[in-house]
């Protein structure tokens, strides 16, 4: 293959660099600002450090403010996202596997209902869900956020596609002839063969729950149950009266973004392989 002319390469590189600046500068600003105190946040130039940066001290302030409420929010987020994503992955795997591998009456109808679920706007559902849960006495509990997080129509969709392509019928037949029960076949064979799809479903559901704002906002009124996002917006709400909260919001935002950045790097790889395998393997 011939190498493209230098002129093309220079144009390509400059366009990509400009785009990278657009996407990275806000993150850079956040990093720099997390090292500043309140006065410097307003008083110094935003794209450069103040004369006395103190990232560790400021982040400790964030973590200890109000009896460590930030740490609690962080733990809540981890709990909602971790538990929710594990349950969602297992439920999706079982349903997707059955929809792909067991011919039963009404199968296509069920699958179409799931597809419709993928297309329903999440926030159009959140309000009705709140009315329903509050009628059931579930609002303002961990369950209110956790239960809806365990349902991933997209996960079922992906698992069905993947199981159909990656779990051979002959293998299932062989296991049945050997006398294995359906649950064992699913646990021992199905789940193992579906692993790449399951990783994708888990990571996406994790990020989705972690990023969700509307559902916890309508469901929760007790700040001890808040996930991070909700906690941080409650801080910005008080920042007018307590300006130090601006600094804590910036520091808290920085802390909350770091683990996701790490996850994103991992996610990107899995997600791309998941997607391309899904479309190539058929």
């Amino acid at each position, binding site marked *: 293959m011939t190498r493209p002319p230098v002129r093309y390469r220079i144009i390509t590189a400059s366009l990509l660099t400009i785009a990278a600046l657009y996407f990275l500068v806000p993150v850079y600003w956040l990093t720099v600002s997390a090292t500043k105190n309140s006065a410097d946040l307003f008083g110094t130039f935003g794209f450069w450090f103040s004369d006395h940066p103190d990232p560790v001290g400021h982040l400790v302030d964030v973590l200890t403010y109000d009896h460590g409420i930030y740490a609690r929010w962080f733990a809540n987020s981890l709990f909602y996202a971790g538990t929710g994503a594990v349950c969602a992955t297992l439920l999706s795997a079982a349903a997707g596997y059955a929809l792909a591998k067991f011919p039963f009456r009404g199968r296509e109808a069920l699958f179409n209902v799931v597809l419709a679920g993928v297309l*329903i706007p999440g926030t*159009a*559902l959140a309000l009705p869900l709140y*009315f*329903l849960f509050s009628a059931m006495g579930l609002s303002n509990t961990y369950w209110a956020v956790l*239960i809806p997080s365990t*349902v991933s129509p997209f996960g079922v969709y992906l698992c069905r596609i993947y199981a159909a392509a990656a779990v051979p019928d002959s293998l299932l037949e062989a296991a049945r002839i050997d006398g294995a029960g359906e649950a064992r076949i699913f646990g021992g064979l199905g789940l193992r063969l579906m692993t790449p799809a399951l990783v994708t479903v888990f990571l996406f559901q994790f990020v989705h729950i972690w990023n969700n*704002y509307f559902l916890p906002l309508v469901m929760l009124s007790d700040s001890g149950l808040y996930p991070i996002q909700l906690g*941080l917006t409650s801080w910005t709400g008080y920042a007018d009266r307590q300006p130090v909260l601006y600094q804590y919001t910036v520091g808290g935002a920085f802390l909350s973004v770091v683990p996701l950045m790490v996850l994103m790097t991992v996610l990107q790889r899995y997600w791309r392989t998941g997607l391309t395998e899904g479309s190539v393997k058929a």
Partner: protein
Amino acid sequence: MSRDTLSRPEPVTPRRARRETRGPRRRASRTGARNARAAAAFVLPFFALFALCFLAPIGYALHQSLFTTERTGPLGLGGQEREVFAGLANYAQALSDDRFLTGFGRVLAFGAVQIPLMIVLATALALLLESASARAVPFFRSAFFLPYGVPGVIASILWGFLYVPGISPLVKIAGSVGWDLDFLSRGTVLWSLANIVTWQFTGYNMLVLIAQLKAVPGELYEAARIDGANAWQVARHLKIPLIRPALVLTGVFSIIGTLQLFAEPMVLRPLASSIDSGFTPNLHAYSEAFVGNNPHAAAAEAVLLALVACVLSFGFLRLVGGRTKERG
């Protein structure tokens, strides 16, 4: 925001669809019964929760939207409350509420500008990254995708600081060259929100498109190049038509996402007086439920919102679907 759950593209090829429906051959009715029992056990947990979290709320909202609360106390405050059937009155009220309709108009204008911009940007970046002349592809890909990992609320807080005078280095830089930037005025705030959404989701859409580009066999490009097509012609006549399904999907999911616009204006509200409680339909429904204490009206508005989202996405699918079919 849950745009992320929704925006998962997965092209289904006819070949794969056929294979799926074939399934194991049925040998005896005993096996069939065993199959059905096993299938039910696998499918039931998901569908029970799906019914609780998707079907029941929709039913409940439909039901609630048809009722209204009648208060018998003086001035309609306090006293006894009871639910009375109201027919479509809540819908009529929502549809004649200027602020609700203005909110709809606002998000439609927002989408009409932001979605094409974002998709064009995502396509351009995907093509640039996939072109042979790109260097340091993994770095750029990660850099573009990074904002997707920043929750909408954090992104809005972040950009909020970059918009608000006093903190924003952008306003400061513009001011030093005599340019009086105001990101939060009545006329500009909608586009400042559009910028936040674009910043967050361009990289995600770009990855969707790259995944589809990668699925195209390389010989196709080779053949085009041997035929003497330059990079631009290959992109215009070969790559863009080939990633059309992915483009359609990103379009549909962007439409759904736009109609749900909530976290961004909600977070910027304390900073921008031009954002009121009816700025977007979702914000309007939220404040109707929690500030106005009128769950019935809010239910009607949520139902209308879901309806418009469905109509627009299916309309869009039909619009572009017809042309895709001609192509075979």
